[in-house]
């Protein structure tokens, strides 16, 4: 009986988000139809652009890699009941510091350079989000607002350094830092065009899952997330939990920034701020902040991002149509929260 109970409960967490997703896709079809686009064409090109060919699959997976990492930036603090939405800021600072590290140790063997980049990116991103956590813990500052404000501050720091002290004088059109060098780029997984960042993302998601659900630390974090007062009564150091979780969350987003520099851009510039941090928030909510569920959801959202180009070329939809769809999915997923426990089919059998 216990087995059946678990299946029912788990199915609810798959079926309801799936319904929400379908609802959002339907709404997007109606939206496109209002602008004179055939919804059937729309869905066809979305599928083609996301998962239709090996080429689009590779494009999708390349975009999913940073999304997994930025989603973890929202999902980990969510275990503690915190809503952190500043992954974009940690990504920018992480990418910037990773670039700086690469430029400092440029002559070293490539592996060493990449390790230095990863450490710098994760440390910088981690401290960036830990700042939000510390402000919440020690000053009672709302972490949602502070983490979002830090995004804008990170953007200003990036612009300042890239246009000023760190600027490569030869970058005329788009101010950028010097390049980290082709030898130091992390390449593609053999047989594909997908870079190793995807593997970083998968490993990070798996580690986060183990940490949250199979260690005492994760158990303590979830207790503190459920009821802070109870956690204090049983003697948990909630402040320490908050700081460590935020540090890890920011490190994930910082690693996303490092990956974008070391695998895609090759240098730091404003191209880093394309919104992976914001889409990551949606991924985390859609995955109900479960680190394992984040992987398929990130691939799905990566696919939607990847299909934007095809929608633009074949249907003449503006590039912002992807943002509209993402917004619709987000709204629809939150609305579906109200459905939990309402379907008898999923009802847990009471003794």
């Amino acid at each position, binding site marked *: 009986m216990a087995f059946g109970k678990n299946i029912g409960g788990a199915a609810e967490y798959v079926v309801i988000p799936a319904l929400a997703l379908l609802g959002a896709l339907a709404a997007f079809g109606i939206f496109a139809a209002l602008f004179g686009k055939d919804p059937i064409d729309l869905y066809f090109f979305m599928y083609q652009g996301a998962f239709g060919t090996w080429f689009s699959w590779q494009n999708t997976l390349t975009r999913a890699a940073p999304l997994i990492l930025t989603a973890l930036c929202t999902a980990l603090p969510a275990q503690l009941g915190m*809503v952190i*939405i500043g992954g974009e800021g940690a990504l920018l600072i992480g990418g910037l510091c990773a670039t700086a590290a690469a430029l400092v140790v440029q002559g070293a063997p490539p592996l060493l350079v990449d390790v230095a980049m990863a450490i710098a990116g994760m440390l910088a991103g981690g401290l960036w989000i830990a700042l939000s956590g510390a*402000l919440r*813990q*020690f*000053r*009672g*500052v*709302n972490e*949602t*607002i*502070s983490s*979002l*404000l*830090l*995004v*804008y*501050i990170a*953007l*200003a*720091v990036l*612009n*300042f350094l890239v*246009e*000023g002290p760190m600027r490569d004088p030869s970058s005329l059109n788009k101010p950028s830092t010097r390049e980290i060098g082709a030898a130091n780029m992390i390449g593609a997984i053999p047989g594909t065009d997908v870079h190793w960042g995807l593997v970083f993302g998968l490993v990070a998601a798996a580690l986060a899952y183990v940490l949250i659900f199979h260690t005492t630390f994760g158990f303590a974090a979830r207790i503190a997330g459920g009821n802070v007062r109870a956690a204090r009564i049983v003697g948990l150091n909630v402040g320490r939990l908050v700081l460590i979780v935020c540090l890890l969350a920011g490190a994930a987003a910082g690693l996303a920034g490092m990956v974008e520099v070391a695998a895609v851009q090759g240098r730091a510039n404003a191209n880093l701020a394309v919104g992976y941090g*914001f889409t990551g*928030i*949606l991924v985390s*909510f859609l995955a109900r902040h479960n680190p394992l569920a984040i992987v398929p959801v990130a691939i799905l959202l990566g696919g939607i991002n990847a299909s934007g180009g095809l929608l633009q070329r074949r249907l003449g939809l*503006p590039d*912002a*149509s*992807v*943002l*509209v*769809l*993402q*917004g*619709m999915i*987000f*709204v629809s*997923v*939150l*609305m579906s*929260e*109200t459905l*939990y426990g309402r379907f008898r089919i999923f009802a847990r059998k009471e003794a």
Partner: protein
Amino acid sequence: MADAGIGLWGVPLAVLGGAVRVSTPFLFVSLGECLTERSGRINLGLEGTLVMGAMCAYGVSYLTGSPWLGVLAAGLSGVLMGGLHGTICGLPRVNDIAVGIALMLFGTGLAFYLGKPLIEPNARMLPAIDLGAWSDVPQVRAALKINALFVIGVVLAPLLLWALKSTRWGLILRTAGESADAARAMGYSVNAIRLRATMAGGFLAGVGGSFLSLYYPGSWNEGLSSGQGVTAVALVIFARWNPMLCFGASLLFGGAAALGPALQSIGVTQGYQLFNASPYILTLLIMIVTCSPKRTLVGAPAELSITK
């Protein structure tokens, strides 16, 4: 001659003028958010409403030739966004902060989508009131050019304070914000009150957006708003949910936001990007100083999830 003579004095003058100019969207968004939060709900989506308002105002002003119709359209788009927020939050077990984040992304995306054709054309701008006509110094004249929406905002702030304090609907709104149970016991629907407060707040935020596209910076593009909506939400906390204090805080933030452009105008080419972040840094610092983990804030509506 006058231009050369004024020199460094141009910076404080530009900051002062900028405080008036740049504060207007802060003022409208924070007044709107103040209204919504007083009813016990927080709308983080006002950033999206602001951008939607800017786009609608620009589009309608361009199509009709009347900037004031644009302002009205911006307000109405805000009502729709607020209505969406209020309706979704009215469902059981839906978190208002998360819905706000969703609408922030949705509103910005929708505005970029619908606003694509508006990047090129020129729309009619809102008028300004020239209070500096007596002066020969162009910087003084520029600083004293007061826009009409700012004047409306200045009138609106005390009006809102009075309405919240002394009118019947103000009392009902505050009751919903202080104790949902009390409002229910009096026979009012808490959801309906909050829905209306969010719609009214959305109207004001939309109007704030119209200022961005129709006065300053006075064009429509995708980089138009960068966090003014979010800053305004934090500003309400700093202003202790008091409309008059929102006005003062908006001026302060406007001055901070004007610092970067003012330095750029006197020829500072390095580091002005950091000054562009000054409103956000200021917001963070103010929140650090005024918040406390040990007690709830003075003046905070008791039902508000952000201060619990």
